[in-house]
């Protein structure tokens, strides 16, 4: 069963090398390895569900001297989301990049990004996490700059510098923890870490670095230009997965490793920043003129929800009540991942067919691109949090917990954020369903439309209807 842990890192990395050496068959390679990676992710999830958390000591050295890969319910679910979203986006990308030379540059970097995501989710070692963060950051930047347009390169450069700053702060925390506890293994550290200046400083620095990378308000300034100017499949995974990886690490550090160190005050601070992100991001999305910028600001807002409920989680005593709320948070992250990836892919189709993505000029889009418009609407359902989307389930659990513990502020922010989301989604749909004749020859390609549609369907229907399994998996896999 632990073979899946190795496969999830070795498969995309091997495929990246092969795609580099054999550019002609790279597309087939990506699809084939994508299937294999998805199968490994399913196997891992099955293993975690039946046998509990898994770990693998690389090179046969005990963790501490060596590095261990670890997976529990949380990481296994997120790994499956990564596999499905990356696979769908790969199918989409095979049609999106027209020229063979473009694909030759794209595929190796794409697979390196996939390697980085999987490696980050599986790593059980602090310094190894730093290396995976850098691998993720550099591959994301290289992909974001791929179009070579001035705006894209400029945004990518800023993205790179911010990301480097973030990982540097993370590394200071790692150095401090090594100085204090002489270990880099997360599991060992969980047991030995004690409240005190070392743990506090390290947690502050690492959290700050990761918040920069996950673009929590007001550190989000770099995100909209970078996500808004990358090629569509790249924007999709940047918004859906890459920022989530940093969020996952914050969650891991706060709820697992430093569980005894974090204080309610610190959690409240994160909650307030999250509230700021929800309100500011939604407001900016409402005012955005381009579809891609709207989607990027919506990411800022949706990431806000993930932090909004941190104070709530820490106010609950460790145990079943907290696990239920944590499940709600994971549900929000999952739904947003699928919905936002689908939304960006659909926007990519609109942009390619119309030659622009100005919201004002989308009138009549539904006549020519019915499936694409439908995918955007489905993504909207998930972003607003209407039933039966996964967001609805997640918010329901979290709001119930917030009411039970009397934390009304977070409830109010969620309500306002959902209303604003409804406003910006209906603004797009209002234009798209307009009666004007659509001026462009729009022939949609199935390889592009279906991934977008399936991703948004997963967010609205599959996660909503099969949501209960997420909680079971989290419980079984701990």
């Amino acid at each position, binding site marked *: 069963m632990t073979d899946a842990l190795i496969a999830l890192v070795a498969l995309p990395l091997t495929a990246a090398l092969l795609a*580099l*050496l054999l550019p002609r068959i790279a597309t087939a390679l990506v699809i084939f390895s994508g299937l294999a990676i998805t199968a490994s992710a399913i196997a891992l999830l099955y293993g975690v569900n039946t046998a509990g958390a898994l770990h693998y000591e690389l*090179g*046969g050295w005990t963790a501490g*001297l060596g590095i261990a890969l670890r997976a529990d319910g949380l990481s296994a679910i997120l790994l499956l989301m990564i596999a499905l979203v990356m696979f769908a986006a790969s199918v989409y990308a095979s049609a999106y990049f027209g020229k063979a030379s473009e694909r030759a540059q794209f595929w190796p970097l794409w697979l390196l990004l996939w390697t980085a995501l999987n490696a980050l989710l599986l790593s059980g070692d602090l310094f190894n996490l730093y290396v995976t963060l850098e691998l993720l950051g550099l591959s994301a930047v*290289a992909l974001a700059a791929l179009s*070579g347009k001035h705006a894209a390169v400029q945004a990518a450069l800023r993205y790179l510098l911010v990301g480097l700053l973030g990982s540097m702060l993370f590394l200071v925390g790692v150095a401090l923890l090594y*100085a204090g506890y002489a*270990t880099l293994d997360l599991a060992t550290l969980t047991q030995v870490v004690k409240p005190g200046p070392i743990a506090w*400083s390290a947690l502050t620095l690492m959290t700050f670095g990761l918040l920069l990378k996950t673009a929590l308000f007001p550190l989000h300034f770099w995100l909209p230009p970078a996500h808004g100017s990358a090629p569509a499949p790249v924007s999709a995974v940047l918004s859906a997965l890459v920022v989530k990886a940093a969020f996952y690490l914050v969650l891991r550090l706060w709820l697992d490793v430093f569980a005894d160190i974090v204080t309610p005050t610190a959690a409240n601070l994160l909650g307030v920043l999250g509230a700021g992100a929800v309100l500011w991001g939604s407001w900016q999305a409402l005012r955005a003129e381009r579809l891609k910028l709207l989607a990027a600001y919506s990411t800022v807002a949706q990431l806000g929800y993930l932090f909004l409920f941190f104070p709530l989680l820490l106010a609950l005593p460790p145990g079943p009540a907290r696990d239920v709320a944590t499940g709600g948070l994971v549900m929000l992250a999952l739904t947003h991942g699928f919905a936002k990836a689908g939304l960006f892919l659909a926007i990519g189709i609109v942009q390619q067919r119309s030659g622009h993505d100005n919201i004002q000029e989308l009138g009549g889009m539904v006549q020519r691109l019915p499936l694409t418009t439908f995918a955007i609407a489905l993504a909207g359902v998930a972003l607003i949090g209407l039933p039966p989307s996964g967001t609805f389930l997640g918010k329901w659990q979290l709001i119930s917990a917030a009411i039970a513990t009397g934390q009304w502020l977070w409830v109010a922010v969620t309500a306002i954020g959902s209303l604003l989301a409804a406003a910006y989604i209906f603004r797009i749909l209002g234009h798209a369903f307009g009666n004007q004749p659509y001026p462009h020859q729009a022939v949609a390609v199935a390889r592009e439309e279906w991934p977008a549609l399936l991703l948004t369907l997963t967010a609205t229907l599959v996660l909503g209807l099969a949501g209960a399994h997420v909680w079971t998996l989290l419980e079984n896999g701990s």
Partner: protein
Amino acid sequence: MNATMLLIFDALLLASIIGLAWAALASADARRSVILFIAFGLLLAVAWGRLLAPDVALAEAAIGAGLTGALLLAALQWQPRKTADTTNSEQPTHTLLETGFRWLVTLLCAALAGMLAWSLTQIDAGTAKDALANAVAANIDASGVSNPVTAVLLNFRAYDTLLELAVLLTAVLGIFALGPAQAGYRIAGPVFSSLTRWLTPLLILTAGYLLWVGAHAPGGAFQAGATLAAAGVVLRLAGRDQIGLPRGNALRIALGAGVGMFLLVGLALFALGRPFLGYPPAWAGALILLIETAAMLAIAATLVSAFIGGQPTEEKTRC
């Protein structure tokens, strides 16, 4: 007496390092900043040597100061020199808000340094701090090499090094995607050309030596790769077209060689029923040398490619 002398040496060295960093970052002139930064890197190498970290000192001198320095100096060619109006006044005018922001950032940075220093006072002496160092010493015989740093890099924490080679590969592929290489330099005159004629083989020889010696003494794939890359940089500066960098498919193989060999060895062992990257002790030394040789070639090819700033444009790419 000896201790006092060393203390004075440490104080002077650290004051120079901090002073150079300050001067490099305070300057508005890009050329000045880069030259001071290279000097900063060289003094850092001295500091690593002083703290008994010769492996790091070699890497810092070769990569941190050397190759990074070469990249930065090449960047000066297209960097806009400082604009005329900021040359004379060291302090450009700021609005009140900007001044406030600058002070806020400065205070926050000072607070960060203070917080770190305070945390460092809380480290308990002794307890467990040698646990991992002892574990390395206890297992070094099974690692296949006797240099503990190489043992950590290529055996105990080999997975880190695998991903690090993937980082290098990502960077060079990202650079290639941005466009073709920069135009080369003029053919050098007789003096410089004659220098390259014997310096290049010497650098290649040194790289081989560093690679071999890394098993039991300071050295290894990274230092060797950087030295090999230095040979390419010197040839490039002398205006040569052929700088030892392969083209087309061969270049791609060279760039991926480090990750490829690592994966090949790791997965082959896995298929034979051993842990992923778990070398059998009897074979460990040979396998590490094999991986390091491939890694050295990949590092050298990557660093030279980064220096010329893109894919070499001899062969037309077929679309």
